[in-house]
């Protein structure tokens, strides 16, 4: 049983993750939510946009578990269907932000001092930019199309990722193994892809897992302002904003989507924190 003695850092991290019951609970919660959103809308007897005008704004009941909205649409189906959009935006926008941020950070960190300084000044400038204006201008330029929203969000969320990656590269680039590679004749791109990229994956995964809830919050903000997902399509942001508007009369319309949204954010945050503890080399003990 030699493999039980020598474990890779990833295996150690996985074992550390699994040791904390709170993390396991968060992973199960997230899996359930994702599963429900994936299949829920398909197995529900109602369509997300089916109106039943005889059942306008009814409280939760046996046939409509989370009630209906003022157009008689089944709220549970809409929440599960909207969850798909919210989660998709969260994952895709984070992917866009991660790709831009990692590429930018790797190049800045590994390039000459002057290029690095110029690239990071640009990041400083963008940091001082009111990001909500940035997103809004992007949405205004490209129109309110669904797939452009996560590009717009991804385009503003890469800044911190770039800083994290660059810091990591600066710490790594003068270590012996990189000097050895350089002495053996490895070029800029070879070092970047073969030596830097694998070594920054830990912080990248940690930061990406913490970016997803932030991105979902941003999507909800945009939808709340009427700049995100357009009706009749619904995301959790759209449903929460509809619920907030009619909360005093139909409280279930706010409670339902809010609980799903917050539970997802909670699970993602807990997993992100646990990943940070597990993958941070400072905290790895045998």
């Amino acid at each position: 049983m030699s493999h039980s003695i020598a474990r890779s850092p990833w295996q150690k991290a996985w074992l550390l993750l699994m040791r904390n019951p709170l993390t396991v609970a968060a992973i199960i919660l997230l899996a359930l939510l994702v599963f429900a959103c994936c299949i829920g809308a398909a197995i529900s007897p109602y369509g997300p946009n089916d109106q039943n005008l005889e059942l306008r704004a009814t409280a939760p009941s046996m046939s409509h578990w989370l009630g209906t909205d003022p157009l008689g649409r089944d709220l549970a189906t809409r929440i599960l269907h909207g969850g798909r959009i919210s989660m998709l935006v969260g994952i895709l926008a984070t992917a866009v932000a991660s790709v831009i941020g990692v590429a930018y950070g790797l190049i800045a960190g590994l390039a000459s001092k002057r290029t690095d300084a110029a690239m990071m000044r640009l990041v400083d400038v963008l940091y001082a930019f009111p990001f909500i204006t940035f997103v809004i201008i992007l949405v205004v330029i490209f129109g309110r199309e669904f797939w452009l929203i996560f590009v717009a969000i991804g385009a503003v969320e890469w800044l911190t990722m770039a800083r994290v990656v660059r810091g990591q590269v600066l710490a790594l680039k003068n270590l012996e193994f990189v000097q050895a590679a350089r002495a053996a004749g490895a070029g800029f791109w070879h070092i970047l892809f073969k030596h830097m990229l694998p070594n920054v994956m830990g912080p990248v995964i940690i930061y990406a897992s913490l970016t997803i809830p932030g991105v979902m919050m941003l999507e909800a903000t945009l939808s709340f302002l009427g700049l995100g997902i357009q009706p009749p399509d619904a995301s959790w942001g759209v449903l929460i904003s509809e619920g907030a508007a009619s909360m005093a009369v139909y409280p279930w319309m706010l409670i339902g989507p809010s609980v799903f949204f917050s539970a997802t954010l909670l699970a993602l945050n807990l997993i992100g924190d646990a990943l940070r503890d597990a993958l941070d080399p400072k905290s790895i003990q045998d």
Partner: protein
Amino acid sequence: MLRFLLSRVLQGFAVILGVLCITFGLLKLAPGSPLQSERNIPENIREQRMAMSGLDKPLAVQLWRYIVSFATFDFPVSAKTPGRGVNEIIAQGFPVSAQVGIAALMIALALGIPMGALAALRPNTLEDRVSTVVATLGICTPSMVLGPILALVFGLKLRWFNASGWYDADDWVLPALTLGIIYSAYIARLTRGGLRETLAQEFIRTARAKGASDAAIVFRHAFKLACLPVLNFLGPTAAGLMTGSIITETVFQLPGLGQHFVGAAVNRDYDLAMATAVFYALLIVGFNLLVDFLQALLNPRIGFKA
């Protein structure tokens, strides 16, 4: 120290100039113009209005005029509310946003720091767990959920405050609570992290060995270092809060600055959009300068290096 300040101020101006140029470029990329929503204006009047607002000039000239007008405090007039300079519009919204923002910041610090400190001092106890769970819950509660709930409970049901609007002297309370509670969660987490790391250091052990009490250790020795991550977070956060959270200003219908960040871009009010972006950048740069200065003051290892 003078060199430190001078170089930071110069960098700040460069950042503001960068923000100005990027905003200008983005606005010019966007289709439409400030005159687009007005129906059927005759061609000659349209040209006159374009000439009046300088929109017929080459792009470089337009950009240069913005730079000059902001640098000389000779602000352009908003295209959508004729007769009012963009500085007047900002001067009207800013006090509202700033009042709510400062109150929210105070609430966040007053709740967050004790909560985080308690958790850090008693690691892995019930207090620590409760504080961590409360902080995580706070981070997962969007202001668009907490705001309407507070408005419902304290505004519509208990009638302690107005549920929305900006009429009475205490109308800042509910929006400030909404933001303060949410940000206190972030501050509690950062305080706990910073304090735990500091408490593990050698000089704290020395202080303990010399018999210093818990309170003396936290306040006299650890706090200066432990609050650095909080300080880092506070710079951009303070600037963001002062310029108004768009969500809370929408929920509570406040006449603050937040509305202009959306409205100016949607209405293609170029001058107002430029002004809000530059104003925001100015605040960010200002607060970051303050944070850098305080950090150098609190942590001798950073110091005033230019």
